[in-house]
C-alpha cells in the first residue's frame, strides 16, 4: 500500500491553504505505515470542515450528524470490531456540540482513534468562536472578544483517564502521521488534537503563529507521568508542545465487554431460538 491507494476522486471543497490538507495527507501516510487496506478502515465524522475529510480518502466513510461522530463510531466499532475506526472531527463538533459524547466515550474506551482538527474557530458557520478560541479574540458574534476561558481538551482528557492523549500540527504532516499511527496502535480511545490554521476566519492562530510556537517533545519527556502530563497539556502561549502528552494502558471496551474474543456482532445476527427463554415466562 502507498498513499495513492488511499486517494479519493471526490473533489475537495476546502479553502486553498486550509490546514485540513496537511491533516488528510498525514492520515493517508499513517494508514500506509499501519499497512491497512482501504476496506479495513472506517472513517467517521460529524459536521464541519474536518467532517468532510473522509470523502477525500479511499476508505469506508460514515459522515453523520454534528457532534455525533463519537457515538456512531463507538456503535460501529462495537458491531464490527475488525474495522479500524478513526474519527475525524473538529473543535466545535467534538468539544462543543458533542461534549457529552467526548466525556463518555473516553470513559467507554472503545478502540477508536479521534483526530480533532482544532482550528480554534467555527469555519463552516463563518467565523464564530469555538470552545477552544483564545480569550479576547473578537468575532462577528463575540464582538468584544471571547470572554470565556477556552476548553482544554488535553487536560480534560487526562483527567478523564484517556489512555492516549497527543497533540499534532497540520504544518508537520510527517510528525502527525506518526502520532496518528501510534494512536491507532493504542488499544483504546486515542485523542489527537491537531492544531491547524483556518485561513479564512482565524486571523490570530495562523500557520506562522503556530509554527513559531510549537516544539516537539523529546525523549526526556515521560508521557507515563500523569502530573507532568497535566503541566504539559496546559502549556500554551509562547511555547506549545507537540507529541504524546499522556499515555496509559488500560483495558478497552471490547476487552471488558468480552466482544473482542467472540464472533463480531455483525456476523452473528441470524434469528435466535428463544424457546429456552420462553420457559421463564411460563
Amino acid at each position, binding site marked *: 500500500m502507498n498513499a495513492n491507494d488511499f486517494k479519493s476522486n*471526490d473533489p475537495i*471543497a476546502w479553502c486553498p491553504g486550509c490546514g485540513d490538507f496537511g491533516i488528510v495527507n498525514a492520515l493517508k501516510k499513517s494508514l500506509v505505515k499501519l499497512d491497512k*487496506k*482501504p*476496506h*479495513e478502515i*472506517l472513517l*467517521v465524522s460529524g*459536521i464541519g470542515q474536518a467532517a*468532510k475529510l*473522509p*470523502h477525500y480518502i*479511499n*476508505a*469506508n*466513510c*460514515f*459522515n*453523520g*450528524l454534528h457532534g*455525533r461522530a463519537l*457515538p*456512531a*463510531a*463507538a*456503535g*460501529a*466499532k*462495537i*458491531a*464490527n470490531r*475488525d*474495522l479500524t475506526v478513526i474519527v475525524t472531527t473538529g473543535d466545535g463538533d467534538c468539544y462543543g456540540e458533542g461534549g*457529552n*459524547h467526548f*466525556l*463518555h466515550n473516553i470513559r467507554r474506551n472503545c478502540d477508536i482513534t479521534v483526530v480533532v482538527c482544532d482550528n480554534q474557530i467555527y469555519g463552516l458557520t463563518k467565523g464564530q468562536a469555538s470552545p477552544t478560541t483564545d480569550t479576547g479574540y473578537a468575532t462577528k458574534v463575540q464582538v468584544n472578544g471571547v470572554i470565556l476561558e477556552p476548553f482544554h481538551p488535553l487536560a480534560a482528557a487526562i483527567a478523564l483517564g484517556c489512555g492516549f492523549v497527543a497533540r499534532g500540527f497540520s504544518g508537520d504532516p510527517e510528525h502527525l502521521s506518526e502520532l496518528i499511527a501510534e494512536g491507532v496502535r493504542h488499544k483504546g480511545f486515542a485523542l489527537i488534537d491537531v492544531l491547524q490554521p483556518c485561513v479564512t476566519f482565524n486571523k490570530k492562530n495562523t500557520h506562522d503563529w503556530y509554527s513559531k510556537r510549537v516544539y516537539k517533545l523529546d525523549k526526556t519527556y515521560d508521557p507515563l507521568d500523569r502530573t507532568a502530563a497535566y503541566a504539559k497539556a496546559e502549556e500554551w502561549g509562547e511555547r506549545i508542545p507537540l507529541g504524546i502528552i499522556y499515555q496509559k494502558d488500560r483495558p478497552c471496551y471490547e476487552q471488558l*465487554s468480552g*466482544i473482542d474474543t*467472540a*464472533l463480531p*456482532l*455483525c*456476523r*452473528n*445476527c*441470524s*434469528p*435466535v431460538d*428463544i424457546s*429456552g*427463554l*420462553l420457559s421463564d*415466562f*411460563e
Partner: protein
Amino acid sequence: MVEFSVKICGEAGQGTQTIGNALCLAFKNSGYHVFAIQDFMSRIRGGNNFFQLRASHQPVSCPRRLSRLIITLDKASPRIHAASLEPGGVIIADCKKFLLDANQPGIFDVPLYTIAAGFGDEMYINSAAAGIAAYICALGLPALGAVFNKIFSAKGGEITAKNCQAAEAGYKYAAANFKGQRFDCAPSAAGKYLLNGNDAIALAAIRAGCKFYTAYPMSPSTGIMTTIAEYASRCGILVEQAEDEIAAVNMAIGASFAGARAMAATSGGGFMLMMEGVSLAGMTETPLVVADIQRPAPATGFPTRTEQADLDFLLSAGHGEFARLIFTPGTPQEAFALTLKAFDLAEKYQIPAFILSDQYLADSYCDAAELDFQSPVEKRRIISFEESATVNNYKRYCLTDSGISPQAVPGWIKEAIYADSDEHTPEGHITEDAAIRVQMVEKRLYKKMAGLTREIVAPTAFSLDGADIVLVGFGSTYGLLRELSLASGKRKIGAVHLSQAWPFPSEIMAGLLKGHKRIFTLENNAGAQLAKLLRRETGITAEGSILKFDGRPFSMEDAQEKIPE
C-alpha cells in the same frame, strides 16, 4: 362470561407487584385466562400503587372498573379503593393495624402484620395476603406454592421458604375464618405463557437477531432493556447504557451501518432527543428500530402512567421527508410479531421503523399461547458475508426502481463504502446537484413508501356487520375494542383496530368503514389524533372521539359510559 377481578393495593416497596405477578401465574397455571394492569406512582417507597388482575374462563384483554377481591397492605388503601369494590365483594384488611371497624360490610379482617411478624419481618405481609387470596379464589395452596418457589428462587432457600410459609399461614387463616362464598368459575385452558408488552418486544428483538441494544433508562421503556440484559450473555447480545438518548440512537445507527441488527427504546421525552438521529437514519438509509413506550406528556408528565399522545409526533419525527414505518401493536402477542416485522422491514427498506407502545401495554400481563411466538423470521436483507466477496463497483445509494440500494457491510466487501448525512450522489459523496437531489428524495420517500404500502399490516375488524356504531382505535386499546364489540347492549358495537399507523392503511380503512354512518375514534389522548389522521388519509370524518387523558387506561365501563346513545 364467568370472571372476576382481584386488586392488590399498597405502598411502593410493599410487594404488590410481586404477589400480583405470582397470583397471575397461579391463575394461569390453574387454567384461567388472565389480564393484569399495573398502576404505580413515580416513587420508590410510599404512595399508593395497585396491581389489578382479571381472571376468566374466556380470553380477557382489558381492565374492569370494579374488583371482587381487594387486598390492602397499608392503612390508606381501604379508603382509597373501597369505591372500586364490586357489590358483594371482599376487602382483605388488617383492621387492628389500619384502625378500621372490622364489622363493616365487605371487610374480611386478617391480622396480616401479626402473621408476617411470626416470620420475623413485616415484608411477609404480601405473601400472607397472597395465601388468603389463593383460598378465597379457590386456587389451592400447591398452585401458589409452585409459583412462589419459582419466583423467589433467586433470593435463596430461606427467603423462599419463609414466603411459602407466610402464604400457607394466610391460606389457613382464611380457611378457618372466611365465611363468604369462594370464587370458582371452572376454568378451561389458558395460554402457556404470561408476559407483558415490554417482555414481548424484548423477546422479539432477541428472536430477530438484534445484537446491539442501547438505551438511556426511561420509564416505562426500561423493562425492555432489563429483559434483554438478562439474556444478553446467553444470546451474545451487547447491551450498552448510553450517556443520553442522542448517543443511544447514534450508536444504534453506527452499529447498523457497520452490519449489526441494532435497536433502541425510550419514551416520548427521550424520543424527542433521538429525532435528529431518526432523520439521520432516513437520510443515510440505515436500518433502525426504535420503540417509543409512551407516557403522558408534555415534558416530564406522568412518568409511570399511560397515554397515546405521541402518534402525531412519530408521524413527523425527524426533520425532512423520508419513508418510515410505525407499528401500533395492541397486545403482547402482536408486539412480538410486529417487532420481528419491524426488524425485517427496517432492513429491507433501510428506514427507521418504530414500535409505538405505551405504559398500559408495556406493564400489562396476559396469558399467551405457544403459537403466538412462532411468527416466521425472514432472512437478513443485507449483502451477506459470503456474497460480499463478489461485489464490485459498489455504490451505497445506487438508483433502483424500488428505491432500495443493496446494503453492503464495511470491511466485508473489498471496496470503500460512503454514507453521508449531507445530500449525496449514488456513490455517497456530498453533492448540491439539483437533479440528483430530486432523484434521492424520490428514492427515500416515494419509492420506499410505495413498497411499504404494498405490505401493510391490515387492521383488525370486530363485528362490523350491522353495527350501529363503529369504534376505531390503535395500539393498546385492542383488547378494549374487542371486548366492547363482544359485549351485549342496546346498540350493536363494531370496532376496527389499527396495528400499523404508517403507512396508513387508507384503502383498507375506506373499505371497512364504507356504509357506516356513526364512526367514533377511541383514544387515550386529548387531541383525537387518530381521528385527524383518519380524515387526512381517507377523507372519512368521525362523528366524534371517545377520549381519556387522565394518565390511566380505559376500563371497559369507562368506555361504555362514553359511547354515545
